Each structure stands twice: as C-alpha cells, then as structure tokens.
C-alpha cells in the first residue's frame, strides 16, 4: 500500500466480510476512503464492489469486521442511518419513482414542508432546479421521471445524491448510461465536490475514465482486495493484472474439436430504443456448429437486447436470422424455439423460472409437446426425461417434484439450462450463464457448455466477465453501445484489446442520440 497521503482518511473499513446464503461476497477487505479525493474501486462483475459499497451506505450490514468513521467505530442499521452521518450513494440500479416529478424524487423522504405539514412544491422545485443547473442537464424539476431518457434519469439520481450534501458520496457506475457530453459535466461536478472536501467513492468499468479522474485506486477480485495504490503510480496494465490475476478459475478445457458448418447467422439486427436511438445497432454475426462465440460488453452494451431480438421478443426489431442457412421467418418465440433456438435469460427469477412450479414442471415447460400423445402428457416419458436431465446436469435435488425455488442459485440455473436443452436446440443463447452462482456450479455450467459444443451445438454466450470470455470462447464478439465493435479470434487476442473495443462507441460522435 502506498504510504504518501495528501488527503486525510475519513472512513475506514477494517477486515470486512460479507456472507450471503451460500456465497462469500467480500472477504477480509480493508478499504480507506480519503477526503477531497476520488477513491476509485474497480473489479469485474461479481467481484464484490457493489456489496462493499452497500455496506458503506448502510444498505447491507457486514458479517464481520469494523467500520471506522472519523476514527470512531460506527454501525449503520439502515441507509437512512448512513445518510444522517453524511454518506450518500448513487445506485447502479436507478432507485427513482417514475410516477413522481424530478423534484419530488430529489426530496423523497425529506420533503420540504411548511408549518402545516403541506409539501412546499414551489420550494422543492426551486431547490431542485439549482442542483439540476449544476449538472447542465436541461431537466425541468416538474417533469415526470418516467418521461426522461435513462441518461437523464441517471443525472437526476446524481442530483439527488449531491443534494444530500454528503461528506462521502458513493457513485456506483454513474456513467453507464450517460453520453460523452454528460460524462464531462459529471466530471466537472465531481471536481467541484472534491474542492469542497467531499470524499468520493467511484466505481466504474471504464478504465480510461478511472485513470482520468481517480486519485486512489483499489482493485477487488473475487471478494478480496488485490491492490491499493495512488492513481499516479499505476497504468492500465497494472489495473488489468490486478483485476484478472494469475490464478486461473476452473474453466473446462478446450478439447480441440473443430467447429463444423455455419449453423446460425444474424444479419443487420436493429432494435429501436423507446427513448430514441438504437439499442441494437445493425449487428451481424454468425456461429458454426460446435463453436462457442463469446459476446463481451459492459452493462447496457445491448447484449441482452440482441438475444431478445433473436428470440423474437420484440415486434419492433428488424433484421434477418438464418438457421442452417435457411431464413427464419417465424416472428414469435414459440415457433422460433421449434426452429431450434433456445435462450437462457440473464434474470433467472424474472424470466427463467416459474418459481412456484416444481423442478420437473420447469424442466419440461418448453418441451411438453415431446411427451404428449394426442393431448395427454405421458407421465412416464416426462419423468424419464427429467431424471435424465437431472443426472446429466448434476442438478442437486432430492425430488424433482420439489418447488424450484427451494434450490440454490446454481441448481436453479441448471434447471433453466436443462429446460432449454430439452427443446433440442441447434443454437443456444446464454445470457450471463454464470451470474450469481457459486464456484462449483459455475464449473459445472462451463463443463456443460464445452460438452454441448462438442455435441455440435452453436453457442452464443454473453458476459461481462473478461476471464470467462477469454477462457471459453472460440471467437469473441465485442459489443458497445448497441454496436458490434470488434470480432476476435481467441487465439490471437488479448484482454486489453477486448477491453479497448468494449469502450468504443461511447465517443462524442456516436454518444448523443436524441
């Protein structure tokens, strides 16, 4: 750790650990936040950054360890508690009320009231306007939040945090939806806050951004802090090295089989965004049988949206897709599944599983027609298929009639994968297949992917984990801001090249679309 300090430490985390049911999110972390400086926190998805920040903001309580604020030990029982001690946070997921106005959002839970406890709307809007003016966002305080673009909503979130007058301000990926011009304004605001002595904790994936505005950098990997330095002493290589590390995760080995003919091709896929512009911007790619194509990109790069278009979930989407060289003209999900497409969605709970149904019913939900004669489900055939899938994917379940919600995250994910496999797909789309599952289950999932590719499936898998995409893919497509910004052969590329490609398309030329 660097010894030289130009800034006082205001907040210190000592030996903090956080354990969730089944997984350890943060392990023995020591972290210092310095006054009047930008303290950067960086790490891959799932490294524990957000958990660490939620502990500081009082949203989560640490399982073990101490928090020292101004040298005194504190414990926050709620986020309100943390706010009252001058800690504010801009969350990664927007925490706004779409049905309320901008001003009402900024002053939510601490409304300005007059003597009769009536909300002083005029006063709130006047004060809100001052904060918004700082951000040069062109947002009127009386506008409804749901009418704003996502980027503007993010600015409202930032204005809300700034209005707290916090001594410590945590920003979790504040620029993920901002245009280049908006990012510049945000940086100006941050500089201003710095001169007022505010300690800023800044989380981002965009390395060039971090290097520009950071004063101190802390790198997290797998819940551990792997490096802590002053920013002026480090470069991109150092950051990547700390992020990725040298110890390899348990990725199944490539068995060296040769991919076959092209099994899937997408041409000129476009999806308009509700707020204008394109969420998926003329993406074309192809996959061969037995090939794993990794799609790397940051949050909001358009990976999930691309998969949604391919599955026919958006009627506004345009473009053509081909399976085995034949165009797929069916536009609805049900018939695309019959043509051999299957999706493993990113959000298991909301889109992958019917949580109140049994493991067995979930597994066969997409493929019931296989077990039906006339209109009767043949129980024996169904049970047999379920038992086989449970065995093949090593799903840990006592009885397939158990509700699927009683399984651990990793086993739930295997159920989602099993459901897709039972449809007998030719092309498998996997959106963040390893998100939120434990190490053992991850290894199982990766092994399954290898096996499926050996069996001749074409696999597209989207991830924002650099390790994963490098270890598993035969080829790597990089998406940024809805566009395909790079296509690499795994053997001939480096992590740095991929990270660089994932930051393209955010330039001022493409950034603003109104």
């Amino acid at each position, binding site marked *: 750790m660097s010894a030289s300090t130009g800034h006082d430490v205001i907040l210190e985390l000592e030996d903090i650990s956080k354990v969730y049911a089944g997984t350890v999110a943060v392990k023995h972390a020591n972290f210092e936040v310095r006054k009047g400086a930008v303290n950067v926190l960086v790490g891959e998805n799932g490294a524990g950054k957000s958990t660490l920040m939620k502990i500081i903001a009082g949203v989560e309580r640490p399982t073990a360890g101490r928090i020292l604020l101004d040298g005194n030990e504190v414990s926050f029982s709620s986020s309100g508690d943390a706010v009252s001690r001058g800690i504010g946070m801009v969350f990664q997921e927007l925490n706004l009320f779409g049905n309320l106005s901008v001003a009402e959002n900024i002053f939510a839970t601490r409304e300005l009231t007059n003597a009769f406890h009536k909300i002083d709307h005029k006063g709130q809007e006047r004060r809100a306007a001052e904060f918004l003016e700082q951000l040069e966002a062109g947002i009127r305080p009386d506008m409804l939040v749901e009418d704003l673009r996502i980027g503007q909503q993010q600015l409202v979130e930032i204005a809300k945090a700034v209005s707290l007058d916090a001594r410590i301000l945590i920003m979790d990926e504040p620029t993920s939806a901002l245009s280049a011009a908006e990012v510049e304004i945000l940086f100006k605001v941050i500089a201003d806050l710095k001169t007022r002595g505010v300690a800023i904790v800044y989380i981002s994936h965009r390395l060039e951004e971090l290097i520009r505005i950071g004063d101190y950098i802390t790198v997290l990997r797998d819940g551990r802090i792997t490096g802590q330095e002053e920013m002026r002493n480090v470069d991109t290589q150092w950051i990547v090295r700390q992020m990725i590390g040298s110890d390899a995760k348990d990725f199944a080995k490539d068995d060296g089989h040769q991919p076959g003919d092209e099994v899937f091709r997408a041409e000129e896929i476009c999806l308009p965004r509700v707020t204008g512009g394109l969420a998926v911007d003329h993406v074309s790619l192809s996959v061969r049988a037995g090939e794993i194509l990794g799609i790397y990109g940051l949050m909001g790069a358009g990976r999930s949206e691309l998969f949604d278009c391919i599955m026919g979930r958006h009627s506004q989407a345009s473009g053509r897709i081909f399976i085995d060289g034949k165009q797929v003209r069916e536009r609805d999900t049900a018939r695309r599944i019959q043509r051999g497409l299957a999706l493993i969605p990113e959000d298991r709970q909301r889109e992958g599983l019917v949580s109140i149904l049994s493991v067995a019913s979930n597994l066969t939900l997409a493929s019931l027609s296989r077990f039906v004669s006339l*209109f009767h489900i043949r*129980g024996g055939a169904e049970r047999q298929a379920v038992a086989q899938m449970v065995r093949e994917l090593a799903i840990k379940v*006592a009885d397939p009639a158990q509700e699927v919600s009683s399984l651990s995250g990793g086993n739930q994910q295997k159920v989602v994968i099993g459901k897709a496999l039972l449809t007998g797909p030719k092309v498998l789309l996997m959106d963040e297949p390893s998100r939120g599952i434990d190490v053992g289950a991850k290894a199982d999932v990766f092994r399954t992917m290898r096996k499926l590719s050996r069996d001749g499936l074409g696999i597209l898998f989207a991830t924002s984990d650099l390790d994963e995409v490098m270890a598993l893919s035969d080829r790597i497509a990089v998406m940024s801001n809805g566009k395909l910004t790079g296509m690499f052969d795994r053997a001939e590329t480096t992590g740095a090249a991929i990270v660089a490609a994932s930051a393209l398309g955010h330039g001022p030329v493409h950034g603003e679309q109104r």
Partner: protein
Amino acid sequence: MTDIPAKAAAPSASSGSLLLTLMKLRTFIALIAVLVFFSVAVPNFFSAANLILMAKHVALNAFLAMGMTFVIVTGGIDLSVGSIVGLCGMVAGYLVLNGIDLQIGYTVYFNVVEIALVTLLVGILIGAVNGLLITRLNVAPFIATLGTLYVARGLALLSSDGRTFPNLVGKPELGTTGFGYLGAGRLLGLPVSIWILVVVALGAAYLARYTPLGRHIFAVGGNERAARISGVRVNMVKMFVYMFSGFCAAIVGLIISSELMASHPATGESFELNAIAAAVLGGTSMSGGRGTIGGTIVGAFVIGILSDGLVMMGVSSFWQMVIKGLVIIVAVVVDQTQRRLQSRVTLMQMAKAG
C-alpha cells in the same frame, strides 16, 4: 429413487409438518366441520332428499367456480360470469319460445339439444370477447370483465324488455319440448345437473393435470414472462380460460332456466362473487399460479352447505352474510400462514442439506 433424503429431512420439521398438513387439508376439515355441525343442529340434515337438494344448489356455484379457478390461476379475474348466466338463460328461453325468425316468412325452431349447443356457444363467445379485450387490447381483466358484466346484463334485459320468459315447456309439433330434463331429470337416482358437474369437473381436473394446456395455465400464472420465453402461447392460454369460464356460466344459465322452466333476465346477479369465494376457499391464490379443481369443488360445497344449513336453522340472512364473509377471511389468513410456515420448513431443509 429419492426416498432417502426426503425421509432424512422429515424428522427435523415434524412438529411443523403436522401443523402444515392440517393447514393443507383445511378446506376438507372445514367441510367435515360444517357437515358435523349441521347434522347435530338441523334435524333431517342427512336425509337423502336434503343432501341431493343441497348438491343441486352447490353444483351451480361449483360450475362457475371451476371456470373462475382457471382464470384466477392465470392471474386474471372474471366478473362477467353472473351476467353470462343471465344472458344465456334468456337465449335458451327465447329460442324455446320464439325460435329464430328468418325475416322471410319462416321461423326456425330448434330442438332442445340444438338450443343447448347454441346457448353454450353464446357463453363461449362472450368469454372470447373477454379474452380478446385482455390479450389483444391489453385491458386489465378486472376492467374488461366488468365491462362485459354490464353489457351482457343489459342484453339480457333488452332481450325481453326486462320481462320473464315463462313456461318453457315448448310445443310438441315444433319439437321444442323436453327443456325441463336438465333441471328436473334424473339418471341412476341422481339429478342430471349433478352428473354434468361430475363430467365437467373430471374433465377440468384432467385438463389441469395431464395436458400441456393445463400446465401452461399454471406457468402463465406463476411467471408470465418466463412462460413466454419458454415458448408458451400466453395469449392462447388466456383466451382459453375466459372461454371456458363463459362455457361454465352458460351451463349454469341452462340449468337454472330448466329448473324454473322460465328465464328471468336478472338471474345470476352477484354469482361471480360466490364463485370467487369458492375458488379462494379452495386454496386458489389470487396472485395466480396456485389452485386446484378439487379444492375449488370442496370450497363450493363448504359455502353452499353453510348457507343452506343456516337457512334450515333459521338464521337470518343478514347473519348468514356475516358468517360467510368471516369464513372466507379466515380461509385466506390460514392460507397465508401456511405459506409462511411452508417456506420456513423449506429453508430449514435447505440449511440442513447445506
């Protein structure tokens, strides 16, 4: 193949599981409780004649409640069933009395079977309108079926100018006789309406359990997005449940008109509420995804026997309403408690399994 782990987990939660089992059987326990109570409190309660009479009353609500169960399982609600009962009764009555005037000097009269089929078709069609409003025009089920509740009731009143179609015996020379069979006829000693209930209930239970459509109904109610991504044709499933609900309502319309040998346009007012009550009492979750046909039938019997029994005891109808309401509330409270207990037991098992 999976007996061992299940047994190993059982003792750890045995005190909880006994309570849990009792709660799962709550509707049955309630049924036995009302039966025992009234057999003591009301003389002649267990006479064959009385039981058959009560069963005929219960059957009407049970039909509606079955249709309602499927609708609620998909996460919807059907408020229009009472009005469909009324309208379908009027359709049947009108066809028996007047036939269809072809405007060219001829009037077509249908026989009773054809009349029944046309009436069922009307019920299914109104259900289809509900389904289209909900799936194509994205109207919330509550609002869509509230609308058809008014429209169907209005049409029923218009069909006769608010009057009753009396005396539906039909004329032998027109071949329209025999309409009374549905309501008054008997087969092997039991009323025809009971037999129809048995057939429809078995059919519905089979559908729920052994067909893809049944599985899809539960999937749509459990998680519509996941169902859609899994290739379930969500709109078709929803169309079906509202059409089936309309079909059930049409059967009730036919049976009531046949029993009374008359069609009154106000028939079936507030029937939808009894149907919802029976479904909920039988364990159907208003948030969708949970419910069984068997449970709903038992629920309908509890409500029906409760109200008939109270009438026989001479309890005022005002008190009857209070009691019915309390029973429904208690049922839902027990249901919620059971869920909580269930999830706690599951968590304990998970913790035990590691």
